[in-house]
């Protein structure tokens, strides 16, 4: 590393004696981040009623990056339990996934069956400022 930059250690640790990996923060490594700028916000919540059979695209929004970012999504299929996507709705019916492609952030449900139709899917998503591909 150059002889300039920033090193922040945790409590009771000497920043000059710790490895970079042990520091809370340094200018050597990026942290996982989510933009909160109004023009670039990369997080949100919502819900959708699953209407039909086959595949239903719950959400598709431009992520605005010139690369394919990594993301993380929680989904709720009813009750108080939230699942990390990808997950399934019921065994054999309704595979839920969330991902980014080159242009968009996408949540969709595939293999929709009768026990999934009419159900409400809630979601919480975070698009990170790191490459996912």
């Amino acid at each position: 590393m150059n002889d300039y930059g920033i090193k922040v250690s945790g409590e009771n640790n000497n920043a000059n004696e710790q490895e970079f990996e042990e520091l809370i923060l340094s200018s050597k490594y990026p942290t996982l981040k989510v933009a909160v700028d109004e023009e670039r916000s990369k997080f949100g919540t919502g819900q959708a009623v699953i209407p039909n059979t086959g595949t239903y695209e719950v959400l598709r929004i431009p992520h605005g990056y010139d690369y394919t970012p990594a993301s993380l999504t929680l989904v709720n299929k009813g009750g108080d339990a939230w699942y990390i996507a990808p997950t399934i709705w019921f065994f054999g019916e309704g595979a839920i996934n969330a991902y980014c492609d080159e242009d968009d952030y996408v949540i969709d449900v595939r293999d929709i069956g009768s026990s999934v139709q009419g159900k409400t899917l809630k979601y919480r998503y975070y698009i990170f400022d790191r490459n996912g591909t």
Partner: protein
Amino acid sequence: MADWGIKLSQPGEDATGADARLVFSSSWKLLNIVHEESFSGLADNTTIYEHGYDYVPLFLPYTNQKFTGVAEAGVASFNHAFGSGRIFCDENRIFTDGSSTTGRVMVTPINLLEDYQAPSVNLDNISKNGRIDHDWGIKVALEGKDIHSTDTRDFAIHSGTRSPMVHMVKYAETTAGYKTYTYEHNLGYPPMFMVYLNIDGTPGWQVIGSAGDTAVVCTDTEIRVSHGYLGEMSVVVLKDPLELE
């Protein structure tokens, strides 16, 4: 927090105020990304990255699988749990299990085998979209990057972003026979979380989700993991620095 350290407030906020108004505090443990590696079309049991730690680090795997058997170039899907092409990790390396695996992995220096509990940080009522005052703030550029860059990837921290913090890491040995393991987080909202499992007889640690014979859920107060595997498990919960309405 101790009476020393560093605090960076959000734009327009007082750094001596509530933690919820900060961009950064040295009391917080962040996810430092110490390595990122893309890979394409790798065969089974191919090393993606030798991390060099003597522990199993927290890793975030992404693949190009949209659904079972549906891979698509340019797609980044977190730990696709359906089908082959999973990413494993042990004390030495990150590697593939399954053929023709394409994706990317991020590595952090968080030890999955060591319990951690963050100090209390009140994060209620925090960052909303559009609260950024562009006239001021703080940016810490990475080595070799331009402080004037408009790409937030070029910064360790940036006041136009929020960084998830590690709330807890819980390691446990698991026994054979289907059961539910419960871990309280008491954050008051469903947080970002990951569950890693090292099943006896499998190549190493993998992220698991809710599919097949495993179930992984969170609520406002706890994480519940159900499976019947003998082995080891690590549950990681991240504090959410963002207000989601």
